[in-house]
């Protein structure tokens, strides 16, 4: 029975059941992006000292939902769609056990719904981190566990699909780099979910009264093997998407497969140690342990990101130079399709992830420098650059590609599409920079009132810090406008966009298969090796990218030593 269709625009092959799973996961992801985004806006407006829109209780509730809905639900739902795409579509292979895939999806829906119910009942405002011994309702932990089991099923289906592709010989040679990146994400995801199970199952039993004590340091150590490693799934996934977009838009081939794949391998080997840098300022853990583990074993995972930071723009530069954009250092970049949101979203994601997210992450992950940063609003400043711009904007960019190709709908509002990555990325950039600044001045994260208006004692932050929080709120507002544009464009295109296939019905936008007649291919032709490049690698060099990399390194070095200098000015302690 013919189960595949070929997208006439991209040439990609979609299997009927994998396609439905991709759509369902992506749509649910956007639903959580919308929920998390609306609450994120309320959080941003509350932290603007002049507006302060929510009361304390609602603020902590909104912040808990914002963190969980975005960091876990939006991202992991979307990542599951990426996994089905990277295995089934890119390898032209049927997905392993699609029926069980729907069970996984259902578990994720039930789990995330339970967590949302727990939040809205009001007794589980424990933040994304749910540190013990502050309790949440049992259904909160139960929901997270069910969600994780669902995601785990998705991971195993990805691995199963790779096995089938190999066995049924759907491709020649090795899996493509993008699939390799997705595989990296899957391996890290399995580790992450296992860590989550190790800590959340006892915590659930504790909340039900079967266990009477959970050690808070043990909780933090294991919980962060879930909490931070899950962010490394994002890094692997969005780096894979950067490579995918470079290939889709420019036909770019990796500068060298060996380097890019080794860099992914470094993620697997070293990122799991990342939980350590969340407990730098904790008692009970030795400095030796902290120095080794927080640096991800001598920063080898940072090295991996620095490599991708060179090779992704580098492969674009080489592809562009081969097309003739060969003048000077940066003609290749000037002549890039900046009006195409697939490209602009991806490139803004790359630049802000590296320059802001990457540098600040390493600086605050340095054992002693963490003293001046731990739990300040510097931390959200960092991860809005990595997750909100790095991951989320990369996912938005690939969505602009997937709506016509996967959903077979034309994008509505081309002008809004063109501007959306700039508005979202720009707003997040303002938000991140100002939060980093305010955090450097000591402003705490997760805090309703930095003016302490109803406290017994008093303290005043520097006026600059208060001003920075105000401007950060405006950045948040701008980012929320960009996020809302994305949700409207995505949902609007699925419902009202021009149908590119007769089979693209309203229901098929939300997970139902297209009309049976669309699936007219029994078995796609074997995926062949990429053509060997004629010019040879020595002919074209990525000089412009190298200059960008050096600028990046200089910023990194300067910013690191500024913070080291700042550290030397605080009270001597040891």
């Amino acid at each position, binding site marked *: 029975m013919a189960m595949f269709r070929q997208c006439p625009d991209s040439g990609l092959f979609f299997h009927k059941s994998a396609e439905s799973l991709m759509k369902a996961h992506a749509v649910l992801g956007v639903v959580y992006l919308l929920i998390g985004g609306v609450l994120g806006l309320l959080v941003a407006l509350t932290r603007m000292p002049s507006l302060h829109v929510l009361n304390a209780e609602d603020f902590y509730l909104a912040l808990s939902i914002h963190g969980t809905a975005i960091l876990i639900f939006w991202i992991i739902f979307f990542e599951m769609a990426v996994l089905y795409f990277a295995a089934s579509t890119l390898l032209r292979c049927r997905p392993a056990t699609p029926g069980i895939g729907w069970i996984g999806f259902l578990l994720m829906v039930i789990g995330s719904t339970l967590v949302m119910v727990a939040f809205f009942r009001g007794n589980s405002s424990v933040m994304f981190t749910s540190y013990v011994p502050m309790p949440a309702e049992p259904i909160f932990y139960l929901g997270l566990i069910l969600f994780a089991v669902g995601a785990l099923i998705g991971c195993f289906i990805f691995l199963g699909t790779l096995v089938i592709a190999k066995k049924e010989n759907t491709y020649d040679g090795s899996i493509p780099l993008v699939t390799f990146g997705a595989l990296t994400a899957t391996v890290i995801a399995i580790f992450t979910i296992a860590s989550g199970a190790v800590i959340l199952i006892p915590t659930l039993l504790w909340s039900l009264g079967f266990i009477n004590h959970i050690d808070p340091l043990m909780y933090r150590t294991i919980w962060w093997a879930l909490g931070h490693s899950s962010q490394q799934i994002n890094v692997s996934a969005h780096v894979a998407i950067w490579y995918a977009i470079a290939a889709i838009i420019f036909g770019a081939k990796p500068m060298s497969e060996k380097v890019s794949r080794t860099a992914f391998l470094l993620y697997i080997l070293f990122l799991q140690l990342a939980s350590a840098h969340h*407990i730098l300022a904790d008692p009970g853990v030795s400095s030796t342990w902290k120095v080794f583990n927080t640096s991800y074993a001598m*920063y080898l995972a940072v090295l991996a990101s620095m490599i991708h930071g060179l090779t992704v723009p580098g492969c674009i530069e080489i592809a562009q130079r081969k097309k003739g954009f060969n003048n000077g250092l940066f003609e290749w970049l000037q002549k890039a399709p900046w009006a195409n949101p697939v490209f602009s979203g991806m490139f803004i994601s790359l630049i802000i992830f590296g320059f802001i997210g990457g540098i600040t992450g390493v600086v605050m992950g340095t054992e002693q420098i963490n003293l001046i940063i731990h739990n300040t609003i510097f931390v959200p400043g960092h991860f809005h650059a990595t997750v909100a711009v790095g991951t989320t904007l990369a996912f938005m960019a690939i969505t602009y590609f997937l709506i016509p190709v996967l959903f077979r709908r034309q994008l509505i509002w081309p002008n809004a599409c063109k501007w959306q990555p700039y508005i979202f990325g720009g707003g997040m950039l303002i938000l991140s920079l100002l939060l980093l600044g305010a955090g450097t001045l000591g402003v705490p994260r997760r805090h309703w009132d930095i003016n302490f208006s109803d406290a017994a004692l008093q303290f005043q932050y520097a006026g600059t810090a208060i001003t920075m929080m105000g401007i950060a709120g405006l950045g948040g507002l701008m980012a929320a406008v960009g996020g809302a544009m994305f949700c409207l464009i995505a949902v609007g295109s699925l419902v009202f966009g021009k149908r590119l296939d007769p089979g693209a019905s309203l229901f098929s936008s939300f997970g139902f298969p297209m009309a049976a007649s669309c699936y007219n291919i029994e078995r796609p032709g074997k995926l062949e090796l990429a053509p060997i490049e004629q010019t040879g690698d020595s002919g074209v060099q990525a000089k412009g990218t190298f200059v960008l990399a050096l600028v990046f390194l200089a910023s990194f070095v300067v910013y690191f030593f500024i913070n*080291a200098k700042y550290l030397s000015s605080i009270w001597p302690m040891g």
Partner: protein
Amino acid sequence: MSILPPSQKIWWKEPIHGIEITWIIIALIWCLVLFAWMPYWHIYGKQNLSNESYKTPPEVFEAKANAMAKAHTVRTEPKSNIPVVKPPAGSDVYMLGRLWQWWPILELEKNKTYRLHLSSLDWQHGFSLQPTNINLQILPGYETVVTITPDQSGEFAIVCNEYCGVGHHTMLGKIFVK
């Protein structure tokens, strides 16, 4: 193309670009500098994280803080009614975090060294000393001992920067340095 299998079956044998290898070497050196900086700062830097901590039940820690306050209280802060404690220079000083205060208020001498013991009686708290900007995580059941030397005089606040419930933002403490 990154979405196709590598053009050579044994992709490990593909050549590496010159700028790639140069960048990898530069980046690796920088990563090693970052790594070496931490042990370096342990030896030559003056601001380091404490390695001294104990598992102390909350009631035991509370008793120690009470005993210190009883022995060395010099006055009571008028509005909040919290004792101001002036322990001798070089001594063991206790400060506890609980919903929602840092207790007691301390009065320290400039450029004198103290062993500051910190713990929580209930949930997790964040010890954020402002405006000098020192931030530590405080866990119930764990007692951290930080050797500090205030080198500025004035009034310092301790903001709680770990979320600890609906009164979190009212949780403040004070240290006077004279």
